[in-house]
C-alpha cells in the first residue's frame, strides 16, 4: 500500500548510558494526524527515545527521518526547525515572567519585542488550538495544568507538526486530564501528529489511534488501539500476565484506633498554611488511603507524622501515646514505621545498603563502644534475602534502582513489625513488578493488624488498597468514604474541591 511519508520515523535507534542500554535497535514511526502512545513500564526507555527525537540526547546508532527525509537532529533547535516539539516531564518555564514572554523566549531573534503584538499572537494561538490560556498571566501564579498548556502552546507556536508529551497526565487531576484529552483530539483533527507517553493503560485506550510498546529498552510491538485491549497491552508491557494484588475482604482484626489526628495544622516550607485542622483516625488492620492532587498538603502531613515538620496546632497520638511534635526517634519508639515520600531524602546516598539499614537503630549495632560491622552486615544480608533486594550489603545505596531502594526502606521499617505505618507515594517511579511487590507487602501488614495511612497521588493505588478513603484538598479533608462508596468520578470531584 503506497502511503504518504511518516511524520517522523526512527530506525534502529540504540542509546547507551554507561553499561545501561536505554534503547536497543528501536523502530518507531508516527503517521500524520494520529495520536500514538508510547507505552512502557518506568525505565523502559520511553523518555530516552523521545529525548533523542527532540535532540536532547544523541543516538549511538540509528537514523531519524522527518517527512521521509533523513534529519540530523543534534539539539532541540534542530528539532524545532524540523517541526518537532516536546513537553517534557519537568517543565522548562521561567516562573517570574508572563505566559507570552515564556512562549516567545528564545524564539524571536529580534532585539526589541512588541509585547502587545506578541500577546495578541499568543491569544490567537490559544483560540485557534482551543487551549485556554491567559497571555498576560505570570507563570508562577499558574497551576500545574495551566503550565502544561503553556508548554503545549509554546510548542505549537513554533509551528510544531509533531508534538511529544511525556507523561502529561502524571501531574493532572482526572478532570484536567479529560480536558487535555479533548484538546489533543482537536489538535489531531486539525492535522497535528501527537506522541503520548504513558504507562497508564486506560488513558492509552481512551485517546490513541495506535500504541507502540517498549519493554526494557526494546520494541515490544506496535498495535492499532481498536484491535487491542488493556490486558493484551499489559502483557506486551511486562512480558507476562500482570497479577493484580488481591485484597482479602475478610479481616476480623479491624478494631482499635491506632493513629489519631486531632485538628492538626501546619505550615509549608514557605511558611504558608499547608494543613488546616486535619482530623481522622486509622484503626488496626485497616488501610486509610489519602487521595489528592499533588501539592494539597500531602507532603506536609506526611512530614508532620514522620517527625520532620512541626505542627502548629492540634494533637497526634499513636497507640494511645501522644506524639505531637515528637522527633523521629520518639515516634519510632511508639511503634510507628515511616516510609517517606522522597526516597532520596530518607537514605544517605553515599552510604552502603547495610549502613542505611542500620542507621535508624544504630545503638543496637554497637558492641563494646564499637560499631559491630559483622552484625550490620549480617542484618543486611538477612533483609536482602527476605525482601529479595537486588544489591549487596556494601553497595552504595545511590547505585540501586528505585525499586530496590524502596525495598531497602520497606525492609528497614517492616522488620520491626510496626503497629502504625505512615507511607507516602510508595510506588512512585517504580516499575510494575516492584509496585506490586510493595502493594503486596502493605496488604500483608494490614493482614497482620497494622494500621496503615497510605498517602498517594495514584488513584488506582488508593482504590486498590484502601479500606477507607480520605480526600485532601488545599490542606483540608474533604471527606472520608468507605472504599465501597468511592469511585473515580466522586473522588475526582472531591480532589478538585467539589463536595459531593
Amino acid at each position, binding site marked *: 500500500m503506497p502511503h504518504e511519508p511518516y511524520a517522523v520515523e526512527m530506525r534502529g535507534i540504540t542509546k547507551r548510558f554507561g553499561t545501561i542500554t536505554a534503547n536497543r535497535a528501536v523502530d518507531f514511526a508516527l503517521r500524520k494526524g494520529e495520536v500514538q502512545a508510547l507505552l512502557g513500564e518506568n525505565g523502559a526507555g520511553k523518555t530516552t527515545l523521545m529525548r533523542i527525537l527532540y535532540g536532547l540526547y544523541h543516538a549511538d546508532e540509528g537514523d531519524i527521518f522527518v517527512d521521509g527525509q533523513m534529519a540530523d537532529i543534534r539539539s532541540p533547535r534542530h528539532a524545532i526547525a524540523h517541526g518537532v516539539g516536546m513537553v517534557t516531564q519537568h517543565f522548562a518555564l521561567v516562573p517570574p515572567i508572563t505566559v507570552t514572554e515564556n512562549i516567545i523566549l528564545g524564539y524571536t531573534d529580534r532585539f526589541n519585542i512588541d509585547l502587545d503584538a506578541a500577546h495578541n499572537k499568543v491569544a490567537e494561538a490559544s483560540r485557534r488550538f482551543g487551549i485556554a490560556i491567559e497571555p498576560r498571566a505570570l507563570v508562577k501564579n499558574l497551576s500545574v495544568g495551566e503550565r502544561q498548556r503553556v508548554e503545549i502552546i509554546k510548542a505549537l507556536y513554533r509551528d510544531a507538526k509533531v508534538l511529544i508529551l511525556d507523561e502529561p497526565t502524571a501531574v493532572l487531576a482526572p478532570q484536567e486530564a479529560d480536558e487535555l484529552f479533548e484538546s489533543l483530539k482537536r489538535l489531531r483533527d486539525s492535522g497535528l501528529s501527537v506522541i503520548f507517553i504513558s504507562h497508564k493503560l486506560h488513558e492509552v485506550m481512551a485517546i490513541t489511534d495506535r500504541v507502540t510498546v517498549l519493554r526494557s529498552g526494546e520494541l515490544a510491538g506496535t498495535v492499532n488501539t481498536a484491535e487491542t485491549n488493556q490486558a493484551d497491552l499489559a502483557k506486551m508491557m511486562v512480558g507476562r500476565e500482570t497479577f493484580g494484588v488481591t485484597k482479602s475482604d475478610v479481616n476480623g482484626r479491624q478494631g482499635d484506633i491506632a493513629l489519631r489526628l486531632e485538628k492538626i495544622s501546619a505550615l509549608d516550607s514557605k511558611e504558608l498554611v499547608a494543613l488546616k485542622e486535619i482530623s481522622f483516625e486509622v484503626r488496626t488492620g485497616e488501610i486509610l488511603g489519602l487521595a489528592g492532587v499533588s501539592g494539597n498538603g500531602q507532603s506536609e502531613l506526611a512530614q508532620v507524622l514522620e*517527625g520532620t515538620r512541626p505542627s502548629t496546632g492540634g494533637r497526634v497520638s499513636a497507640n494511645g501515646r501522644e506524639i505531637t511534635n515528637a*522527633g*523521629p526517634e520518639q515516634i519510632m519508639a511508639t511503634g510507628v514505621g515511616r516510609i517517606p515520600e522522597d526516597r532520596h531524602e530518607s537514605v*544517605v546516598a553515599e*552510604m552502603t545498603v547495610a549502613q542505611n539499614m542500620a*542507621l535508624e537503630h544504630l545503638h543496637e549495632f554497637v558492641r563494646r563502644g564499637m*560499631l559491630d560491622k559483622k552484625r550490620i552486615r549480617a542484618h543486611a544480608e538477612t533483609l536482602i534475602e527476605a525482601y529479595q533486594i537486588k544489591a549487596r550489603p556494601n553497595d552504595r545505596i545511590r547505585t540501586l534502582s528505585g525499586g530496590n531502594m524502596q525495598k531497602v526502606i520497606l525492609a528497614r521499617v517492616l522488620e520491626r513489625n510496626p503497629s502504625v505505618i505512615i507511607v507516602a507515594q510508595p510506588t512512585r517511579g517504580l516499575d510494575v513488578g516492584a509496585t506490586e511487590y510493595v502493594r503486596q507487602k502493605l496488604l500483608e501488614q494490614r493482614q497482620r493488624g497494622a494500621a496503615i495511612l497510605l498517602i498517594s497521588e495514584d488513584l488506582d493505588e488508593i482504590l486498590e488498597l484502601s479500606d477507607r478513603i480520605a480526600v485532601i484538598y488545599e490542606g483540608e479533608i474533604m471527606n472520608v468514604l468507605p472504599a465501597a462508596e468511592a469511585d473515580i468520578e466522586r473522588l475526582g470531584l472531591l480532589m478538585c474541591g467539589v463536595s459531593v
Partner: protein
Amino acid sequence: MQIKIERSPAPVWFRPLIPLLAIVFTFVITASLVLLVNANPLSAYYYFLIDPLSSRVSAIEVLVKSTPLILTGAAVTFAFVGGYWNIGAEGQLLMGATAATAIGLQMHGVPAWIAIPLMILGGFLAGMLWALAPALMRVKLAIDEVVTTLLLNSVALLIVSALLNGPWRDPISQWPQSPEIAPSAIFPKLIPRSRLHLGFILAVIVVILVWFVLTRTAFGLRMRAVGMGSSAARFAGINVDRTMLISGLVSGGIAGLAGVTEVAGIHYHLIDAISGGHGYTGIIVATLGTLNAWGVLLAALFIGLIDTGAQTVSRALGVPVYLGDVIQAALLLVTLGFLLLQGYRIRWRRKG
C-alpha cells in the same frame, strides 16, 4: 569528530589516584613559574621532592614541619566529615598556643608528667572554646560557619598581639614575645640533637583516634550521615544539631593541639607568627587527603616535604621561597578541580 562531556562518576579504582594526578598536574603548571626565574623545573622539583629525603637531618625536618599540619589537617577533616565547614583552625590553633603558653609559664617546679598533659588538655579546651560560638550560632541560628569561623581567625590573632604587646611582652628583650615556658613543660625530643619532638607522636595518635572515631564508632557513622545527607540523617532520628556541634568543637580542640605542639615543641614561647597559616594549610591537607585520616597523614607529610624543599630549592637555585606556597595553593585548586571533575567523563565520538 565530536567531543562530549557526560555526567558519569569515575570508576572506584580511579579515585585514590586523584590526589596523585593533582600533584603531577600542579607541577606541570607551576613549571612555567620556575622557568620565569630562569631555573630548570626538573632540578627545582628534584630539590623540592627528592633532596630533602636524601639526608637524615632534612628528612627529620620534614617530620617536624608536618607535625602541626597533621593536626590541623585532622581538625579540618573531623569538621568537614560532619558537614561542618570549619575554616577557623588558624584561630583555634592560636588559642591553643595561648593556653599552652599560659599554663607552661606557671609550670616552674612542676614535673613534666603533670605539666605536659596539663598543657595538652588546656590547649584542646582553648581550641574548643574558640570554636564554640560559631558552632552554636550555626546550629541554633543557622548562621553560616564559614564566615564566622574565618572572621574569628583575625580576632584570635589580635588577642595574641595584644597579649604579646601587653602583659606577656618579654621583660628582658622588650620584643613582642612571651617569656619562655618552664623547662618541664617543654616537649622532650624524640631524636637527640634534632627538632623532632613529642608533638609528632601526639599528632600520629590523634590521626589514629580520628580514624577510629570516624570509621569504627556509632558516633562516627552518625557524623558521616549528617555530613553526607543531613535531611536523611534527621529522618533517621539522628540529632543533627548536636552531632554537628560536637564535630565542630572537637575539630577546634584538635586545631588547638597544633598550637600546643608549636609552643612546647619548637618555640618555647608565644610569638604572633606561631602559626604562620598552618590552620589554612590544614584545609589543603584535609582536601588532598580526601577527608580520610591516613590520607591526612600522607598529605601533611607531603606538604611538610614541599615546605622543607622550598628552602633547599631557593638556596640552590635562587628561586624565591614563596614558590613553595604557590605550589601548595595551586595544589589545593587542582585537587578541588579534580575531585569535581571525577563526576564527569569526556567522550570522543566519530561522526557517521
